[in-house]
């Protein structure tokens, strides 16, 4: 495995009502990682830590082998960021906003920016206050993609973007990826990442509960659907997440072959979708 482009170790940030606890993960170059979790799980805190927007209580962040806390300003030249609700000075024209932004990033490609603006249907003469949320997100994407980035960080930028646009965007991402670059993509729309993300990281209650290649996860984990009579105490305890309805249960296992062997024909054991994983991992506390 190559040296990770981004390495997080033991990231901890305490807020009054919420704690991000010792989050660790590795993002190898050349890969797209999906960051998934319910609202309030800590995804945004984690991404903000990478951008130096929160003061961490503990933990280290390494980017291209160097400490992000120490060399943040220099390293951030190689990082592009798209926030969940991008904000811009309301009175400024898009062209002006670009001029204020571009000088900070060596290698910002003016020609590519113009092309992106045209592709995304944005007029540089428009003012920021005239844009809808979807358009602001598109504009933030033009700034990010025209940058010469090594790491692209996206914090749920897909709210307000239609499916066709999102699919084209993901295609742009996979074209842009090469062996020195990586993308960290937080989203609520798990179906966008299905079979597209190389790595998936699930965050829940401030902890990284699962982070691995999508292939490995799909090979090992499974969803079990069956009647309530199959549930006894040892079975419940073996499940990694469980949702009961009057008609039956849905559960998550991290031992797909073993579970298949155990239940045989009595229950349906399938490969999980990312959404299954997210929803059921989320239910663990309620089981």
């Amino acid at each position: 495995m190559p040296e990770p482009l981004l390495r997080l170790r033991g990231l901890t940030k305490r807020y009054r009502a919420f704690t991000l606890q010792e989050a660790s993960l590795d993002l190898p170059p050349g890969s797209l990682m999906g960051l998934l979790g319910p609202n309030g799980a800590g995804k945004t805190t984690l991404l903000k830590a990478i951008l130096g927007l929160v003061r961490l209580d503990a933990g280290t962040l390494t980017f291209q082998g160097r400490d992000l806390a120490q060399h943040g300003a220099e390293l951030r030249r190689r990082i592009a960021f798209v926030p969940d609700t991008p904000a811009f000075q309301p009175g400024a024209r898009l062209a002006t906003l670009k001029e204020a932004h571009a000088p900070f990033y060596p290698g910002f490609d003016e020609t590519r920016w113009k092309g992106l603006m045209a592709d995304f249907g944005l007029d540089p003469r428009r003012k920021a206050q005239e844009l809808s949320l979807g358009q602001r997100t598109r504009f933030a994407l033009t700034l990010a993609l025209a940058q010469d980035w090594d790491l692209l960080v996206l914090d749920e930028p897909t709210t307000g973007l239609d499916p066709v646009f999102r699919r084209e965007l993901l295609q742009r991402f996979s074209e842009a990826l090469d062996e020195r670059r990586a993308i960290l993509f937080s989203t609520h729309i798990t179906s966008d990442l299905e079979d597209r993300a190389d790595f998936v990281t699930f965050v829940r209650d401030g902890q990284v509960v699962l982070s691995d290649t999508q292939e490995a996860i799909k090979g090992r984990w499974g969803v079990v659907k069956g009647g309530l009579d199959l549930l006894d105490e040892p079975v419940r305890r073996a499940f990694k997440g469980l949702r009961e309805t009057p008609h039956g249960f849905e559960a998550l296992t991290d031992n797909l072959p073993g579970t298949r062997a155990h239940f045989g024909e009595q229950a349906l054991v399938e490969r999980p979708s990312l959404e299954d994983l997210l929803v059921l991992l989320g239910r663990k506390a309620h089981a």
Partner: protein
Amino acid sequence: MRDLLRRDLKLHKVAFVLPAVVALLGGLAAFWTGEPPIVFLVLSLGVVLLQPHALHLREEHHGTLRELHVLPVTPRQIVGLRVVEGLLGALGVALLHGMLALVLQGPGVFQGLGQLVSPGWLWMLLMVLLVPLPVTLRWGGRGWMGLILGAFALGGGLTMLGQFEGALPFRTALFRALLWTMDYTTAHPWQHTLALLALMAACLPLSEAALRRRSL
């Protein structure tokens, strides 16, 4: 730093208009009223030195503070930006007033040139720009609410103090110390200036630390 200044010029054009107008009006008012230009210069400087705070609060208000922090710049550069903005503004206002006075009232007004090197300027710079800067950078708009409330409370407290002067046990020691400091500093301008400069220098790392503590 140049990129940061340029960014602010591009994004906050409107915000630069008000202090420029105030400075211009101040210069003209000096001519019309016949008061010494220095009076209006002090007022204009006060406004201009508040400007860096205003820009930071404006970014906060529009939600673009995060964009500023995400840029590949260090917190120190952001502090530097605000200080430089204040200094450049002050310089601009002083020049503007000087020019206006020169044009409108003739060279005679510069007889009182000695006034212009008063440590009073440093006091203004310190109290208006540098001391509140950590507050702006750490707490933004909320911090200024606090500052203003604090100033009112202090003012109220001092008036009250006047009434109960006799009853306060610490009065003599505190007042004596204050009076002594004022006496000493006015009598020793060099030490006074040096002390001010030291205080100003201390505000810079404080501001930087304040900015680092801000979570966005």
